[in-house]
């Protein structure tokens, strides 16, 4: 296997004086979909925030395409080719749907088939219908689509989704899983944090489980499917 797209090793981080992550190791290769699972408060979102430079690191190495990005400012980390779909969607409420898509759009990394407004609207047709609405005037599901579209418009090499289906109706969830499967087929690497184990089993190539700030289990979908003990012990509420 070639060097991974994203390589995190020994990541330690937290908030204020309290430490949340205690040496997280996590790799994502080009074109690979990796899921990060775990119960509430185990450090999934903290991992994303530390990776994106949104909170300071206490220790650890982060490399993207071999280049160190640990402790770089968030905009540099994003520009290296990481598209973030954050927890809680965080749509810009005072911008229209279309403005949300174009405000931070970029095409820095010279990919062949770049994401454009037209391609996003074809990929996520609900957004085309809502293009003139303000970010806070659309439904939660549409906001989630918009958050995905907004991240894709930065033409990332790695898409990170933090709880992208949380609190959404089953139909919308299914639509999102379908879209992610399409992105996977097109070769986009994805790091996905979610609680829907069944959907992750179908989508992801590998799974990692976080427990109290450490990776306690990892393996393929097959391994996870045939390991009810791991599912019971680390994922059931």
């Amino acid at each position: 296997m070639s060097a991974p797209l994203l390589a995190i090793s020994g990541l330690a981080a937290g908030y204020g004086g309290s430490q949340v992550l205690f040496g997280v190791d996590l790799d994502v290769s080009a074109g690979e979909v990796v899921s990060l699972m775990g119960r509430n408060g185990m450090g999934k979102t903290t991992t994303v925030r530390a990776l994106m430079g949104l909170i300071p690191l206490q220790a650890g190495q982060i490399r993207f395409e071999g280049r160190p990005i640990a402790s770089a400012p968030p905009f540099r980390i994003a520009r290296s080719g990481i598209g973030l779909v954050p927890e809680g969607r965080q749509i810009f409420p005072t911008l229209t749907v279309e403005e949300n898509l174009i405000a931070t759009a970029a095409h820095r990394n010279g990919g062949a088939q770049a994401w454009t407004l037209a391609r996003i609207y074809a990929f996520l047709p609900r957004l085309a219908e809502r293009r003139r609405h303000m970010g806070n005037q659309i439904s939660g599901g549409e906001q989630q689509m918009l958050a995905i579209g907004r991240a894709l418009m930065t033409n990332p090499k790695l898409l990170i989704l933090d709880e992208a289906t949380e609190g959404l109706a089953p139909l919308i969830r299914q639509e999102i899983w379908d879209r992610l499967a399409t992105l996977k087929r097109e070769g986009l690497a994805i790091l996905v944090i979610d609680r829907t184990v069944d959907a992750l089993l179908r989508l992801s190539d590998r799974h990692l489980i976080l427990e109290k700030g450490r990776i306690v289990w990892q393996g393929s979908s097959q391994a996870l499917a045939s390991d009810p003990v791991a599912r019971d012990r680390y994922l059931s509420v």
Partner: protein
Amino acid sequence: MCERADPGDTMSTPLFVVQLFNGLQLGVLLFLVAAGLTLVFGVMDFINLAHGVQYMLGAYLAVTFYRLTGSFFASVLLALPASMVFGLALEVAIFRHLYERDHLEQVLATFGVILFLNQGVKIVWGAAPLNMPIPDILSGSIPLMEGLRYPVYRFAIIAAGLAVAVALYVFVTATRVGMLVRAGATNAPMVSALGVDIKRLFMIVFGFGAMLAGFAGAMVAPILSVEPGMGDQILILAFVVIVIGGIGSIRGAFIAALLVGVIDTLGRSFMTDMLRLVLAPSTARVIGPALASMTIYLLMAIVLAVRPAGLFPAKGRA
């Protein structure tokens, strides 16, 4: 602050119209100062008490350039980039080291900048008030109605302020940088996490904000005495404006600036007369001026009671 006509004995219509225009003129000046303040506060969560200094410096720079060039228009045009450069120098030298600090430290440090620069201005230009003439083409007055004339120059201030407001509106609503400014006012970390250098964006905002405040100062240089500390009072009003308008909102700043300008001016002119309708004249004379200087704070209290985040809140509408 702006000179005001003496309150008349009675509330005549011409006087009311004059004061309404005076209020509008104060309003557009407040908007020019408040626009930068609200964006800097909204985007970077940075309280800059020294923003009023930019207004004072704009006036001093205009006077200085007038002495060098002899032309009002050249002096205003030169004062704009000079104000921006000065603002950017302050940002690089002092303010950017304060963004991560808490609000109390920002207030203390920028208050120190006010004291320092008010003294600095005294050392460079002297403590005595300076002035510059109104240009010939904008001097004189035009008739509004029977027996009522209004100075051309004050109309020019209102027109220039409104023109800047329109230009700013177009900039904020129709350009990519404007979108990022709006996005940054609601969620700066997210803008950064999507690959935008928020610090550079903020420098642009800061520079423009300094320039707009400097423009306001340059515009009032011919009608006010240019003196140290002239920015302090307008700064307080500008803070009232951005709190009423909703922090981070240009539209809110515009509406609130006109409201504050008009209500403050009309309150100071007519409060005593209005009180005379319900109180004894002597009592009205005592209470009137005191109440007049409180009207905008009462307005702020009422707005905050009804809409705690201001009229057009930028944050927390997700």
